[in-house]
């Protein structure tokens, strides 16, 4: 190998700057309190609960402009707090400020005791009851649904099974065609799809038998693998980049807080998620069933807004866009946003576009 040069004086100078950074960061770190990194702080009230699931109604931040309430439905992987990470990066606040009457469902912290809960329970049980509770509170027949990621799949199934109760459906970063990662086959994109298909169905069954659920830390490890060098650098170089900047450092810590809060996925529901959907792709094939009823995407006759991230490495765009050809409505619109999976909600540009994009679309259909 030919010798390459790194100038020592340059390295020493950079090291000195680095030292100053670390010193400033240490000072900032010593002043931090729990409240400084609190997430999901937008005020809300619990209006319904059953078992570990609760429904919350956000307090308004502006005059209501969209007549029909919107229910945010997150999935069981991760937590809804992503939609309200911090005051200036909050889909929840953006929607409230634009006059949306907003609800969110919190699935709680499933434990091994919840091993036997199925997607049927979540979609046809808890979610259906949340919708019923909102309809009853407002004396209305239909609500607007806003599904996020796995929650978008719940929303899609619910809308297909109970279209008479859904005024419009909005999806964000939602997989519909679980084999759609092969359309573009981008390096570093769709690893969960590839990984899940590399397993045999019995591997998944035994995993759930052994642990009773899909452990949160396990899924966290799978996500970390998707950005291998990022994972390796996160707590050294990345942290050093932001450690002396109050705002960036707090953003970093809040995001870490959200990532660390990864609930276990109930076992039987996880089997359906990984085998029926990721492996067998039953949703797009029209063979997925909930409580013995086929989920027919053609029954989705209400207006649909499908939001996806153009650089989403977890849910590649094609996996979301597949919905367009399957729904039973002509009022179908796609909203591609710049950035990645989480960037849609917290990225400076995307999160603003997401809030206004949703409200403008709703207003046109009010």
């Amino acid at each position: 190998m030919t010798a390459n040069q790194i100038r020592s004086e340059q390295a020493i100078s950079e090291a000195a700057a680095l030292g100053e950074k670390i010193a400033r960061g240490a000072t900032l770190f010593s002043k931090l309190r729990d409240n400084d990194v609190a997430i999901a702080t937008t005020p809300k009230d619990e209006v319904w609960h059953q078992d570990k699931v609760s429904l919350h109604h956000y307090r308004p931040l502006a005059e209501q402009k969209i007549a029909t309430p919107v229910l945010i439905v997150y999935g069981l992987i991760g937590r809804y707090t992503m939609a309200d990470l911090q005051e200036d990066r909050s889909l929840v606040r953006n929607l409230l400020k634009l006059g949306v009457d907003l609800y969110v469902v919190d699935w709680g912290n499933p434990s091994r005791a919840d091993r036997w809960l199925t997607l049927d329970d979540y979609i046809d049980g808890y979610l259906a009851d949340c919708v019923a509770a909102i309809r009853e509170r407002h004396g209305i027949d239909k609500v607007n649904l806003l599904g996020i990621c796995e929650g978008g799949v719940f929303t899609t199934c619910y809308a297909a099974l109970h279209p008479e109760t859904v005024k419009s459906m909005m999806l964000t970063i939602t997989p519909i065609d679980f084999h759609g990662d092969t359309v573009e086959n981008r390096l570093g994109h769709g690893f969960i799809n590839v990984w899940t298909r590399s397993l045999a169905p019995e591997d998944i069954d035994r995993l759930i038998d052994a642990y009773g659920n899909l452990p949160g830390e396990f899924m966290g490890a799978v996500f970390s693998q998707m950005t291998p060098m990022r994972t390796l650098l996160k707590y050294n170089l990345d942290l050093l980049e932001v450690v002396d900047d109050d705002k960036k450092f707090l953003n970093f810590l809040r995001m870490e807080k959200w990532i660390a809060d990864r609930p276990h996925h109930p076992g039987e529901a996880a089997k359906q998620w990984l085998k029926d959907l990721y492996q067998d792709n039953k949703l797009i094939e029209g063979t997925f069933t909930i409580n013995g009823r086929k989920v027919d995407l053609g029954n989705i006759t209400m207006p649909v807004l499908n939001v996806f991230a153009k650089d989403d490495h977890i849910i590649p765009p094609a996996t979301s866009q597949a919905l367009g050809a399957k729904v039973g409505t002509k009022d179908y619109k796609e909203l591609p946003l710049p950035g990645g999976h989480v960037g849609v909600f917290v990225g400076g540009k995307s999160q603003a576009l997401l809030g206004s994009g949703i409200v403008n679309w709703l207003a046109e259909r009010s």
Partner: protein
Amino acid sequence: MTPLDYMKAMAELWGRGGKDFAAAQQNFLAGMMKATGSGTPLGALPTDMFDTQGLAQANEALSKLWSSALEMSQTITRKMQSAEQQDPAVAELLSKIFDPRAWLSGTDGMDQALQRMAEGPRLADLWDTERKMLTLFNAWTALRRRSLEHNAVILEAWIRAAGRFAKDLNEKADRKEVLGSWRDVVTLWVETANTTLLETQRSEPYLNSQREVLKASTDLRLAQQEMAAFYSEIFGYPTREEMDDVHRTVTELRRELRAFQRANRGTKTGLRQQSRASQSRIQHDPDRGTSS
């Protein structure tokens, strides 16, 4: 702190994730030798019942790769500095950045997560039930073996990445390009390494070895549960299986209750709608002389 101290601190920070790997390997192998040797509690058991051969083979393969990777790492680090400007702090930093141990400790999060989960309950004091213990021990050995095999796949990827990186550096040197900053070096390394890792993750060897780690981890967990169930029964405690049965019953009862409540709510709503409809009919009935 002087700039050199800061540079050392940075090197330490970089290497934090990977520094314990070698020590852990040594401890593990020492423990294995002790466990399978004579004069120990395990030594009293027939050692040919333990499946240690596969583990030894996996370890040998990893050791060979390890030597190659370390040699390559040292060569890269050495060549990154010009002979006349040796700076120990910079050398230390570079050696940490190009240390393959960081990959093994930082990129196999899945492996670590599985091992943490599998090793939850400690059952080291259960020596009376040889058969179950052997199953458990073999499951543990199998997990270690699969982990070593998976690490070998990752290490091969590191060697490939290091080779590409060295090639890039040579080409830059041929073009008389100067790398002005260690950050330039790190950026080049990160880009090269990331691409190689992502390619590796989609390869059959990687997916297969990871699947084997997952299966071995699950087997170990199930073997542990079998031991736990054995003792639970002796002491009259509920087993995991019994608890699962109870939870299943509770879930099914809740499901029925929800369905009942929903049906009840539907009936009430239906009655309210019927009542509203008939009220409306009465108000519009001309014979009753009312209208709203």
